[in-house]
């Protein structure tokens, strides 16, 4: 693991917002992009904090402090991509964690990347009941719905959410993110509109593919 991530993890645990921001700023000044900041700096720092808990060096209370500081740094960093004036034809996306899921930093990073790509994004946070998701989907009418879960025991619950989304009239692309990794059994998902995402690099590839498709559609219109 990068030394900077360890330093950042200790700054998070100390509740030191200034030191944490300086570490991120230093990497930004060195030319690192958002993918690097999220995936090579913030994520390893939070994983390292998980390891410290496993070694009995910190408690869950310490983890809560670190999560709060990490959220602050992530929010401050990604604020530069928040668009004050929304364009009319902007694509829309919503992101949230399943009800009962509290690990929200990963999906917040994905949400920030969509914002950076110019999407109109609503981040609905952790622990979102199915009814609230449905209400937002019907009112905000997103093209993309991003869902996060971290326990394999939540898969039946995911099935309920997907079932409700597939009943909607509008065609939706559903991205499911999980730190459990590719080992989980996703055979129960038959719809092609559901895609599992295990890293932010896959989000980058998804954007490339999506841009390519949009360009192709525009070319067809011109012909």
């Amino acid at each position, binding site marked *: 693991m990068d030394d900077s991530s360890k330093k950042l993890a200790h700054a998070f645990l100390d509740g030191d917002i200034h030191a944490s921001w300086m570490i991120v700023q230093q990497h930004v000044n060195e030319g690192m992009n958002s993918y690097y900041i999220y995936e090579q700096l913030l994520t390893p720092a939070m994983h390292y904090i998980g390891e410290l808990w496993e*070694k*009995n060096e910190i408690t869950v209370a310490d983890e809560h402090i670190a999560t709060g500081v990490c959220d602050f740094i992530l929010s*401050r960093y990604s604020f530069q991509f928040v668009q004050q004036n929304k364009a009319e034809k902007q694509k829309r996306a919503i992101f949230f964690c399943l009800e009962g899921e509290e690990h929200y930093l990963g999906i917040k990073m994905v949400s920030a990347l969509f914002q950076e790509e110019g999407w109109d994004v609503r981040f609905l946070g952790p622990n979102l009941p199915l009814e609230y998701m449905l209400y937002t989907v019907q009112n905000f009418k997103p093209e993309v719905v991003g869902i996060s879960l971290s326990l394999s025991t939540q898969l039946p619950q995911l099935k309920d959410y997907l079932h409700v989304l597939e009943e909607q009239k509008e065609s939706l692309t559903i991205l499911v993110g999980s730190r459990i990794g590719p080992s989980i059994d996703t055979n129960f998902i038959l719809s092609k509109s559901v895609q599992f995402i295990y890293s932010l690099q896959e989000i980058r590839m998804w954007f490339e593919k999506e841009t390519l498709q949009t360009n192709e559609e525009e070319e067809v219109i011109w012909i």
Partner: protein
Amino acid sequence: MDLRTVPVPMFKVNRQLEIVSTSQKAQEFFHSSSSFLELVDAESKQKVYNFLLSPTSNESFELNMKTRSNPFGLFQIYVQWEEEFGYVVCIEKDKEYQKSNQILHRLREQLHSIDFHEYEANIRKELLPSILNVKLSDLNRLSLSEYVGSLEDIPTKVDTVLDILSVLRPELIEAGKSEYLDIVTRELTDISSIIHYLLAASNRDRT
């Protein structure tokens, strides 16, 4: 010792972590199981091997456990081994963390609506008193963010005043007021340097 009467969840386990007997409270909290490991969340199992089974370790530690009501309940674990049997006490911690969870939730909500441009402007404002050794109340009256445009005009205005003073210089010397003239000139020059420093600092922060 009769485990059943212990007023907290407690397990008597062997070295394979098979449950030999439990307290009444343990049965209330957890589903019936023959193995202690089955009650532990997958990501906490390594911690059980490292701290529960280790004969040298006698420190308490946190574990996520599957209870009847919560698949992810947090417990503080204490263990004492006597020959082949370990006595494991599990103290529920979720209630203790309720308040910090609520605070974290509030923080997350607030982060959603923070204007970080304004936040950074405020940080600069907080740093300036220490740099310039001035009172914060004076600086608040200045409201730097509102007058940032006017701030850039000050050096030119000070230069104009200094130029006019130099025109008046012979008359003031003749009138015996040269000491006042020197004080005014010195004060204006100081103001000019402070403003130049402020402008340089705010430009550096913006880039």
